[in-house]
């Protein structure tokens, strides 16, 4: 464990800003949410809320230096706090709708500028900043360019907005907390699901599902194999919440042995359309919480599954389209036919 932490520290020193610095920034922001929640007497569950974001903050500040068992206990504590309704909603220390309309007229379209600094910095960072190395040490860790640029963009936009709009110094934290409270415990769902995915992988759930598909479905015709592969990618992705987990399993069970080797299909076409069939599954599942559940909370929708319901017909039609596309293309095109 200690050696692991040392290795991580050594990797960090290869760039001025690495992922660890971004985690520290996030840790301080979440700590700010926790402190402001604890001080908010209008939140009926202010200490539960503060404990939740405090633990979340601890994970970002110290997670790299804690043993795995401590991180596991921390995750379990978050589950218990979130699962048993320890979180409440704080009072909204924000402006009224009339204030906002007046302010929107006063500041005009310039209000979009700080919001657009974030994607603009992400773009610039991903394209250009990767190669900047003053004095030989890279400014950012190129492997994490997207995430680091996102954090840099937030920091720049934060400073610009503070200097320009001159709110109370703690206003960004209170406004951030207002949005965070609308998401609540669902905010940690994506990370929890990623962890469940790791336990699934460790236990060999993927292999078991692959066996089920390979053993119980007859494949005497190329179309059956293709339909089983595409639909299997969709369904398995929906179960795991992630097409990356489904792809190796389904491709090893059906894709390569049947579509490529037995029926002579092109592996590039199979792989490309197979992965995209998995993405159809992503559209349908609460397991892909960051795409489907967190946005429903963020948009203050009363139905947790509203985004999934909006996507479900598209997912089904597109999965059917993928199956037909693969059947039409995989045997006729591509550079890999034997």
């Amino acid at each position, binding site marked *: 464990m200690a050696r692991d932490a040392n290795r991580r520290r050594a990797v960090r020193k290869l760039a001025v800003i690495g992922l660890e610095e971004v985690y520290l920034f996030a840790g301080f922001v979440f700590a700010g949410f926790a402190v402001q929640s604890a001080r908010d007497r209008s939140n009926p569950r202010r200490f539960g809320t503060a404990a939740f974001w405090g633990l979340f903050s601890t994970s970002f500040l110290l997670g790299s230096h804690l043993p795995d068992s401590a991180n596991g206990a921390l*995750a379990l504590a978050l589950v218990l706090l979130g699962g048993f309704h320890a979180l409440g909603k704080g009072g909204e220390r924000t402006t009224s709708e009339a204030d906002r309309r007046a302010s929107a007229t006063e500041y005009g379209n310039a209000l979009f500028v700080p919001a657009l600094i974030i994607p603009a910095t992400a773009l610039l960072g991903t394209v250009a900043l990767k190669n900047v190395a003053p004095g030989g040490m890279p400014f950012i860790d190129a492997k994490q360019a997207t995430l680091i640029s996102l954090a840099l963009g937030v920091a720049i*936009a934060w400073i610009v907005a503070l200097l320009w*709009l001159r709110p109370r110094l703690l206003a*960004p934290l209170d406004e951030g907390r207002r949005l965070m409270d609308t998401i609540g415990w669902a*905010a940690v769902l994506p990370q929890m699901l990623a962890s469940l995915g790791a336990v699934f992988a460790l236990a060999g759930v993927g292999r078991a599902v692959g066996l089920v598909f390979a053993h119980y479905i007859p494949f005497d015709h190329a179309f059956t194999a293709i339909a089983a592969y595409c639909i299997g990618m969709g369904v398995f992705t929906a179960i795991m919440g992630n097409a990356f987990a489904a792809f190796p399993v389904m491709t090893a069970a059906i894709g390569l042995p049947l579509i490529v080797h037995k029926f002579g299909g092109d592996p590039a076409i199979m*792989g490309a359309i197979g992965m995209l069939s998995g993405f159809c599954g992503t559209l349908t599942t609460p397991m892909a919480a960051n795409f489907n559940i967190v*946005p429903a909370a963020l948009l203050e929708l009363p139905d947790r599954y509203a*985004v999934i319901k909006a996507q479900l017909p598209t997912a089904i039609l597109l999965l059917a389209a993928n199956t037909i596309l693969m059947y039409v293309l995989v045997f006729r095109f591509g550079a890999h036919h034997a």
Partner: protein
Amino acid sequence: MLTLLGVGVVVLGFLIRINPLLVIAAAAFVTGWAAGFGPVAILVAFGKAFNESRYVSLVFLVLPVIGLLERYGLQERARMLVARIPAATPGRLLVAYLALRQMFSAVGLVSIGGHAQMVRPLIAPMAEAAGEKRGAELSSGARFRIRAYAASADNVGVFFGEDVFIAIGSILLIKGFLEQSGVVVQPLELSLWAIPTALMALAIHGTRLLLLDRWLATQTAVVPSESSP
């Protein structure tokens, strides 16, 4: 086969709407137990993965900035902007966003967009304003459906745009896995063969977004606004 019990726990838990955090924890322990791990080993594996996937939660860093701009009327400004465009409808606006999101993703710019950065502060209010423009007040059902579709446009756009870019994670995973199995393919081939599905996604979801306008028209016809001229 016993390891599939955890999958059953997840499906059942989501179906009967138990708190998902409790479902996940239960599924992790059932799966680990079925595979012969002790509770401590499961906790260690879970904690390690939780720590290593912290990057997923970094998106929440944008909330203070977005919240602050909302305080000064960002959503209202986005609404005002749309109110000036006579041709804007929720469906057309979301089709435009879907197409742009796909195009940006196809050239590797997946970070332009996103639910916290774009959909909540800009796209959803714009689509709602486009729906309100025809004089009728939106019912809360209509409002919620427009928002849900705004989120769906972002998801469909990025999912079925990003694979057209050769250096995205999923393309590299396909290449890597096929290579391990002795089949060498080029990233360019993979991204080329992602294009037919990308076009189908635009056609299917684009059509559904335009049908949203038709649905909204039936909604406002049933409940006419008393204040419209």
